[in-house]
């Protein structure tokens, strides 16, 4: 079903394989409603103009019920809504059941951002998918209810903490950010909006992301590159990304916040300074240098800063490679 209203004021552009059928059903209901609405308003206006109270006008007897009429206007709408229900649910089943060969992306929603995790371990906060290929989104939430909504695809599904939900799509058009210097790039579609549609607290309306659709080859290149954070970045930049992505930022302030909101000590402006630590029950003083940081990541409980409790995740080489620790060290050095 193709939509007649698709390019009118009612819809964002259609960019997925199901968008056409959703819009088609929308059109069908729209025209049906329009007919009924015009009929109702026409009858109302006609009766008002024809029978309004004026000198000399009197009401005339008419039947106060008419079974054939009443049954007719009950049965016909019943049949019509039956048709709407049928197309609504067949269309819906198509949207729920992802094909088995679908490319799977993990979507993690949390207050107030999106994290997309790809099969090769790449992570990004903007969504990149290949064109013309079924993509399944496995949705998770880290805190409260969120809802994964891409209007141009006509898909939406809540992210429920404590369980997995899913939805899927076949994107039909690629996106390119138009480059004003490039004559040939003018036709590229803008990246699409991804919204959080379920109210999730203070910055609900800021929980948006962009969706990029690539040619298959281009997508493979992107996802490979995205998996390798160290390449093409300075160590400090890569370290900053890793610091956030590996969860360091949840326990360590980089703004000098000493409060209980952060379990660990703040890390900015610390490089090269001395600190008192407890190591196996004895107190000693260490300098915050490369070896101390590396030890604190690999064996967090070896030397605990005074006043703090042990409890940090032990980062094995599987969780964090040596190269990545080097990048994090570079980042910590840069924090003033």
């Amino acid at each position: 079903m193709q939509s007649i209203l698709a390019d009118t004021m009612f819809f964002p552009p259609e960019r997925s394989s199901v968008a056409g059928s959703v819009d088609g059903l929308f059109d069908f209901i729209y025209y049906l409603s329009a007919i009924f609405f015009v009929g109702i308003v026409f009858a109302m206006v006609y009766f008002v103009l024809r029978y309004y109270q004026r000198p000399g006008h009197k009401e005339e007897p008419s039947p106060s019920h008419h079974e054939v009429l009443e049954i007719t206007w009950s049965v016909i709408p019943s049949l019509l809504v039956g048709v709407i229900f049928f197309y609504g649910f067949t269309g819906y089943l198509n949207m729920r059941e992802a094909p088995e060969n679908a490319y799977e992306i993990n979507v993690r929603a949390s207050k107030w951002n999106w994290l997309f995790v790809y099969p090769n371990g790449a992570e990004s906060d903007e969504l990149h998918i290949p064109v013309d290929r079924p993509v399944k989104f496995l949705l998770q939430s880290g805190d409260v209810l969120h809802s994964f909504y891409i209007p141009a695809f006509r898909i939406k599904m809540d992210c429920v903490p404590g369980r997995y939900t899913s939805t899927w799509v076949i994107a039909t058009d690629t996106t390119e950010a138009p480059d004003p210097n490039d004559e040939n790039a003018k036709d590229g579609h803008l990246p699409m909006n991804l919204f959080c549609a379920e109210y999730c607290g203070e910055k609900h309306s800021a929980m948006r992301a962009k969706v990029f659709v690539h040619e298959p080859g281009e997508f493979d290149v992107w996802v490979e590159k995205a998996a390798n954070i160290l390449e093409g970045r300075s160590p400090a930049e890569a370290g900053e990304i890793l610091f956030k992505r590996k969860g360091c930022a949840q326990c360590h302030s980089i703004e000098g916040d000493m409060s209980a909101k952060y379990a660990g000590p703040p890390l900015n402006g610390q490089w090269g300074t001395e600190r008192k630590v407890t190591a196996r029950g004895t107190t000693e003083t260490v300098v915050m240098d490369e070896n101390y940081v590396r030890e604190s990541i690999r064996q967090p409980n070896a030397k605990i800063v005074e006043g703090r409790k042990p409890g940090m995740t032990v980062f094995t080489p599987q969780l964090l490679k040596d190269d990545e620790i080097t990048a994090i060290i570079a980042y910590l050095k840069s924090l003033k």
Partner: protein
Amino acid sequence: MSTITPDTKLDIGHNDDPSSNYLTCSSGFLSWAFTLDHKRIGVMYLVGIFTSFFLGGLFALLLRIHLLMPNGLFPETWVNMNTYNQLFTLHGAVMTFLFIIPSVPAALGNFVLPLMVGAKDVAFPRMNLASFHLWVIGAIFFLIALFTTGLDTGWTFYTPYSIETQTNVIAATIGAFILGFSSIFTGLNFIVTVNTMRPPGMSWFKMPLFMWAIYATAIIQILATPVLGITLLLLMAERLLGIGVFDPSMGGDPVLYQHFFWFYSHPAVYIMILPAMGIMSELMSVYSRKPIFGYTFIAYSSIAIALLGFLVWGHHMFVSGQSPMAAVIFSGLTFSVSIPSAIKVFNWLATMYKGNINLATPMCYALSFIFLFAIGGLTGLFLGALATDIHLHDTYFVVAHFHYVMMGGTVIAFVGGLYHWWPKMFGVMYNEAWGRFFCLVVFIGFNLTFFPQFIMGSRGMPRRYATYDPEYQIFHQLSTLGAIVLGLGMVGAVAVLVWSLFNGRKAPANPWGAATLEWTCTSPPPFYNFEHAPHVGSPYDYSQLKYDPQVGGYVKDPNAKPASDHH
């Protein structure tokens, strides 16, 4: 409870002055605060709910003005995202719990229903007073929430957000819990009143349709409200004790909360709209001077809506992660409830056929209702159909849809009903020209506010957003402009009524020529409603009434033959 037989002479009231009525028979704060008179309780409800309405309306105007600019019109220090979230939450919570649920049943119903059955009060006057006092206490808890840390959960209190937010969820839920009892008391009272206090001659199918509607509403109030009470108690226990029913980190299920919540709150939609439909049946008939068309279908459709309304709550949860099977079943059931509503609209239209249509203010509101409710109802089809709902769910399309139903439907019918019964309630006539003028302003403002929201919603604008993409700005601007017009219209509509209290012409007993019993007593009614027990006739037979220019209203036509279908 007292039975009234024809020729029973009733006690006139607290003082013996024959010109005394329920407003003047006694005075002082206590004579109102502890009255057992259903009419005074109705009037106090009216004052209470209008105060709530303007508070809720003020929140709405503030947030609409904020949305004039994509990043918010007001500076961050005035309205930041937190303030915005509180504005829309309190708008929804105040409008739903304090205003719209009690509006027609508790305010108008309280006043009108006993008069319609020719009784001197409801079945349980003390319980009736208690329901109002509970409403006041509930309202106080809402004010506590408002003036302490506010509330930012949305009126739905969805978990787990409502468990962890720092705002005053406890005060608000206690408020809603208490208001639930208020609603149950009202419903219980009406059921018993209709069942036991109908006068001889008023069989079920001789009742005015407003009574059918209130009766159907009362069934929902009694059966659904306890579920909300239990849900809110569980939510409080979850917050205070961490019992883990809804909290996923303790193995609870947030989707279960949604099931519980909507099991009440969807039927609650019918608590809001059914009484409004009852008003419509009265208005269309009286102002067309025709018996209501298809009485039996309308009466049964009220009951059908009340019962089917219990089976459709899952359509609020099509994208919540409930099973696809459940979604399909709920979608099917949802469409079934649209049919009785459609039937009513056709019946109202048919009532106008060959009538003598008096375009008085209440009728203008009634016509406005049909226009707006038709849009509200038809756009429900887009949301009941699964494939289209996936896209439209939680967008402004939904916001527009339920405002067309709730405000375009219930509020418009409520105001129409208020204008209709105003002369009876206060014994004064309002200014027709201004009444109609503000009806038109409300109609224009309403459509300008909410129609653009259908468009931006189908274009993907999510609801409950403090900031938005610039592509939606034009629709937001139109909507805000409409909201201002609508606000002025509502203030004007109420001002016309208030003005009439001081300057209005004295109202006759029956200014509109209606045939229901409340129009047989004087306006305003005496303390005990009727000096003589009224004679029950057909509620929609106008042939017995004729206009008397000297009275300025309708009187019984001495030459009229008894109606043929009157038993």
